[in-house]
C-alpha cells in the first residue's frame, strides 16, 4: 500500500514538475505540496474505483456461469416425493410376501409384528399411491404447467432418433451428443414405466384389497390373475427402480451420489446446456420477443 502510494506521489511530483517546466512558472512550496496531495488523492481514488469495477465484473461473470433455472415446480416435486415414499413403503412391505420362504422375510415379519401389521402398512402405501395418481391426473389435465409437461412427455419420433444418436455417441461413432428437449427419452421411459406400473398395480391391488366386494362381481380366476400380475409387476417395477432409476439419478458417475433437481427444483445453466439444450433455446427465444414487445410501450 505504502509502496503504491510512494509511486503515486512520485508520479504526481513528476506531473507538477513537467507542467511548471513547460509553463515556465514558479510556485511557492506551500501551494505545490497542497496541489500534490490533491493529485495523489485523485489518482488513488481512480485506481481504487477501477479495481473495484474489475472485481465486480469477475464476480458477475462467475455468478452467470452458476446460474440456476427452475426445472420442477413445487407441485411436481411434491408429487414425486409422495410417490417415492409410497413406493418405498410398498416395496418394503410387499417383497417379504413374495419371498415369504426366505430368512429375511421371516425376520421382517417377526420384527414388525406379523403380517397383519405389514399388511396395514402396505395399504397405507397403496393409499399414498392412489392419492398421487389422482393428483397427477388432475395436474396434467387442469393446470397449464401440467398440461404442458404432459405434452412434452408424450413419445415422439425424435425420441427414437435421440436414442439411436445416443447409442452412436456412447459407442464413439459420433461426437455429437443428442440434443434433448425438456425430457430426454430416458426420462420419458421412466415416466411411462411408472404410468403402466401404476395402472396395473392399482387395478390388481384394489381387487385384492376389496376382495369381498369384488367376489360378487368377478369370477375367481380374475383374483388369480390379479394376484399373479400384482406379484410379477411388483418385481418388474422394483427391478426397474433399483437398476434403471437408481443408475440414472444416483450411480451414474455424472450425477453420483444423487441428482437433487427433483427435490430442489433447481438446475444449473451448465447442466441445462448439457442435458436439455433445446429447452434452453426455447426458453431464450420465448423470453426475447417478450422484451422486444415490452420496449415500444
Amino acid at each position: 500500500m505504502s509502496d503504491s502510494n510512494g509511486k503515486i506521489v512520485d508520479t504526481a511530483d513528476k506531473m507538477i514538475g513537467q507542467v511548471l517546466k513547460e509553463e515556465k512558472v514558479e510556485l511557492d512550496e506551500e501551494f505545490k505540496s497542497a496541489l500534490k496531495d490533491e493529485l495523489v488523492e485523485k489518482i488513488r481514488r481512480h485506481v481504487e474505483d477501477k479495481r473495484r469495477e474489475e472485481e465486480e465484473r469477475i464476480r458477475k461473470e462467475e455468478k452467470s456461469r452458476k446460474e440456476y433455472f427452475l426445472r420442477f415446480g413445487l407441485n411436481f416435486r411434491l408429487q414425486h416425493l409422495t410417490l417415492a415414499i409410497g413406493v418405498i413403503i410398498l416395496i418394503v412391505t410387499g417383497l417379504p410376501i413374495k419371498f415369504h420362504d426366505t430368512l429375511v422375510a421371516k425376520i421382517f415379519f417377526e420384527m414388525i409384528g406379523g403380517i397383519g401389521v405389514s399388511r396395514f402398512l402396505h395399504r397405507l402405501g397403496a393409499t399414498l399411491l392412489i392419492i398421487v395418481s389422482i393428483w397427477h391426473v388432475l395436474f396434467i389435465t387442469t393446470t397449464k404447467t401440467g398440461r404442458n409437461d404432459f405434452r412434452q412427455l408424450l413419445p415422439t419420433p425424435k425420441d427414437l432418433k435421440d436414442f439411436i444418436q445416443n447409442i452412436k455417441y456412447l459407442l464413439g461413432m459420433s461426437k455429437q451428443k443428442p440434443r434433448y428437449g425438456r425430457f430426454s427419452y430416458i426420462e420419458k421411459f421412466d415416466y411411462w414405466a411408472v404410468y403402466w406400473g401404476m395402472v396395473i398395480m392399482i387395478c390388481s391391488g384394489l381387487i385384492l384389497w376389496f376382495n369381498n366386494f369384488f367376489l360378487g362381481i368377478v369370477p375367481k380366476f380374475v383374483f388369480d390373475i390379479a394376484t399373479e400380475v400384482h406379484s410379477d409387476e411388483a418385481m418388474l417395477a422394483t427391478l426397474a427402480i433399483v437398476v434403471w432409476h437408481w443408475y440414472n439419478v444416483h450411480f451414474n458417475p455424472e450425477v453420483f451420489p444423487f441428482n437433487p433437481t427433483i427435490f430442489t427444483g433447481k438446475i444449473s445453466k451448465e447442466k441445462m446446456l448439457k442435458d436439455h439444450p433445446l429447452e434452453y433455446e426455447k426458453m431464450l427465444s420465448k423470453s426475447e420477443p417478450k422484451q422486444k414487445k415490452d420496449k415500444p410501450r
Partner: protein
Amino acid sequence: MTALLTILLALFQLGPSSQNARCFLCHGKKDFGVVENGKFQSLYVSPKQFEASIHGKFTCVQCHTDVKVIPHFIRPEKISCLQCHFEGNTVGAPVKYLPEMYKYSVHAKASAAGNPNAPTCETCHTTHYVRSPKDTSSGTYRKNIPQLCGSCHKKEFEAYSKSIHYRALENGMLGAAVCTDCHQEHDVLPPSDPRSALSAEGVVRTCTKCHADTLLMEKADVPVQQPEAYSESFHGIALENGMVRAANCTSCHGHHDILPASDPNSPINPKNLPKTCGKCHPHADKNVADGKVHIIPSERSAGIVFFVYTFFKWFTLAVLIFLFAHIALDLSGFIRRKYSRHE
C-alpha cells in the same frame, strides 16, 4: 457231579413260560377272581393270548416286581408302562410313538381330573394282550384304529366313516389317514393348543405330511401339488406369518367327513363353494367356483395364470437385458470420454 450240572442247566433253561406257569396255576383259571365291594372281579389272564402277545416272552414278575412269593395275598401295585417304555431304556421297549407324551394329552388331563372314562395305556393297548401295531389282530393296527377310537368317540367315528379316508381304508389303502395320523397317538391335544398337530398352523403341516408324499398320493390318485400351492397362496402366507384366522385346509375341506370335490356332499363341491367361501367372505357367490383352486402359476395346469406368469417372465427378462445393456453402454461411453480427455 454230572447230575448237579444237569440240574443247573435245567434251571437256566427255565424259560418265561415255565416260570409263568406258576402264576397261571391260579390266574390261568377262567373263574379265578376276587369279590371286592360286593362285586366279582375276574383276575383271569388267558395264558394262550398272553403268550401270543408282544410281551409273551417276559415273565409276569418282570412287570409285577412287587410279587415276591407265591401265593401273594396283597394286591400288587398298579404298574406303569413307562417303567420300560421311556426314552433311553435298555430293555429295547419301543418308544417310536413317544408314549411319554401321553402325560400332556387331553386323555391324561381328564384322567388326572378324576374322569373314570378317560383312557390310559391299557384302554387302547389292552393290559395283558398287547400286540404290535403291525399285527393285524391288534387294536392299534392302522385299519382297526378308527373302531378303537370310535368305541368312545362315537359321533366322530360316524362322521369319519363317511369320509374318503375311511372309504379308502376299507378298500385296502392302508396309507389312508386314520385318527392317529392327525390327532397323534399319545399326545392328543386340543386344536386350541398351539403345540397341537391340529392348531391352525399345525393342521397345514399335518395334512402336508401325507398330501405332499408323491408315492402315497400316486397310489391314492390324488394330486400332490395342493400343499405347495396353498403355502404360496395368500391364505398360506398369512397363516404362516401370524394371521391365525386365515383359511387353513380344514376351513374349506372340513375334517372328519372329508370328501372329494366330485361328491355332492363335499364342502368343496362347486355347488357348495359359495357357502364354504361365504363363511369368511360374505359376498361370495357362484363366481368363486369359476376358476381353479390350488394353482401353481409356473405350471401349465394353472391355465390363464400360467400365460400371465410366462408373459411377465419373458417381459421382465427382456426389459432388464435392455436396461443393463443401456447402462453398460453409458458407463463405457463415460469411461472412454474420460480416458480420451486425459490423453
